[in-house]
């Protein structure tokens, strides 16, 4: 199937007006009109401009009661609000000092992390005693969250290729008191791990970061449509490799901090074309609006199964933009 059409964006008058009003590139405005429709697109862009507060994950490996941690931080002047999607995730509406400089942070009582990122690990639902792979894992938000849900039992293989990022990953593993991790310095595409040996796999794939525009407004004008095309090719390679790590019956999460269908539903569609053993599991979370995956974009029809994937947006779920899709290797 020829997918070139997906990357050929025709820019409308409405998109030009929108791009001027909100200060973003016209091709992005056009894509947002396609994603949301004219009624919803402004709601999305307003939410992006308003931004969302930073959030923290309470580390239940060492904190007996997250309520106690919240009280302690509130005494120091922080204003904190619980997430509806992740019960041990909290928005920090006011920071009297930087969240990274508190004693509680240094003690490993919390990790500064987006709620969308946390939600991807909730969707993966790793269980105590399992063997889990976290690919492209630095700086370790998901590895340490997986360890938290496994209560430091079983094993986690955490892989990243970049030595500087690995140092951050290991520092975070130590700070968060995680004990069940092996860290490999490796390129996922060349790693020699035994295929078919993992109960669960997390692939938070490298992406263009289009979901992070709530934090980084410069993302409105720093990427081109060609970046999306190149990234989606790389993401497909990673997904096909990562899926092979799974045992038959095992599950994986393909996630990105991007809302681009080109990096998400399109990648899943192509992977489904190539892998008969792959199926998409319904990805829904308590407390979320549970916006389904997009099945058609810019005139290209994706596989129907992708509607089972989950999209998070700032205007629907008060999170950074995130895509989460649960995949299963058939028995």
């Amino acid at each position, binding site marked *: 199937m020829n997918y070139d059409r997906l990357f050929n964006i025709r820019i409308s008058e409405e998109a030009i007006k929108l791009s001027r009003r909100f200060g973003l590139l016209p091709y992005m405005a056009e894509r947002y009109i396609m994603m949301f429709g004219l009624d919803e697109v402004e709601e999305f862009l307003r939410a992006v401009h308003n931004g969302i507060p930073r959030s923290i994950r309470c580390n239940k490996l060492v904190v007996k009661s997250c309520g106690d941690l919240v009280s302690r931080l509130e005494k120091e002047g922080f204003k904190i609000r619980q997430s509806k999607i992740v019960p041990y995730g909290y928005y920090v509406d006011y920071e009297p000092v930087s969240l990274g400089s508190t004693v509680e942070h240094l003690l490993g009582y919390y990790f500064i992390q987006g709620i969308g990122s946390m939600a991807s690990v909730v969707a993966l639902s790793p269980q105590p005693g399992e063997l889990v792979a976290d690919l492209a894992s630095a700086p370790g938000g998901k590895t340490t969250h997986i360890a938290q849900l496994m209560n430091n039992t079983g094993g986690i*293989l955490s892989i990243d290729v970049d030595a500087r990022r690995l140092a951050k990953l290991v*520092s975070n593993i130590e700070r968060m008191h995680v004990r069940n991790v*092996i860290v490999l310095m490796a390129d996922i595409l060349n790693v020699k791990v035994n295929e078919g040996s993992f109960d669960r796999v997390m692939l938070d794939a490298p992406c263009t970061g289009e979901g992070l525009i709530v934090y980084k407004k410069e993302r409105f004008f720093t990427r081109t449509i060609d970046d999306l095309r190149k990234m989606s090719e790389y993401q497909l390679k990673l997904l096909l490799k990562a899926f092979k790590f799974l045992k038959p019956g095992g599950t994986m999460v393909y996630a990105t901090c991007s809302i681009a269908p080109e990096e998400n539903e399109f990648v899943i569609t192509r992977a489904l074309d190539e892998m008969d053993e792959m199926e998409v599991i319904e990805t829904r979370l308590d407390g979320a609006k549970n916006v389904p995956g997009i099945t058609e974009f810019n005139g290209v029809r994706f596989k129907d199964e992708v509607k089972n994937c989950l999209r998070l947006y700032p205007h629907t779920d008060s999170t950074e933009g995130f895509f989460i899709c649960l995949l299963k290797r058939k028995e």
Partner: protein
Amino acid sequence: MPVEEKRVRLTVCKEGKRALDSFLKSIDAYNKNCAVVLCLFSGEKMKVYCAQQSLAQLAMTLQDSGEIIYHVGMLAGSLNNRGVFLPSLELGWELIKANTISGRNVVVLEGDEAKEFIFGRTVELVSEMNWEEGKAVAVINEQGEFLGWGKIRGKRIIPVVDIGSYVRYKD
């Protein structure tokens, strides 16, 4: 006890175990969560790790298939090229949490003293000192939370490693 050979391989390591045991003995402590002691050479140091049996086995299998192991289980400390064992923050946290270190080797710092310590600064103590000169001590705050390792010098505590280093050396 010098580091005998520089190696990049992860190994089950008697030298690391001896150094860890000897350090724990010197501070009247024991660690019950160290099923296997593994060593990994890193720069001028040999890093010493504690791991559960199954995790250690998996790490060795991965290494045998050609992978580079960067970390496994819990970092217990490191051994420098003069054979001196430097305990990790994780080891201190573990010992304080499990209450397996003698109170004679624990110093409690209050308020601003605790803050100074986690900024990596030497702390002048107001209270009387009964500790042995040069001795390694685990430093905790009033809530009993582990802040780092220090060394006694007269009426001062010199930080060896403190939890502030998690953010000071991030990049």
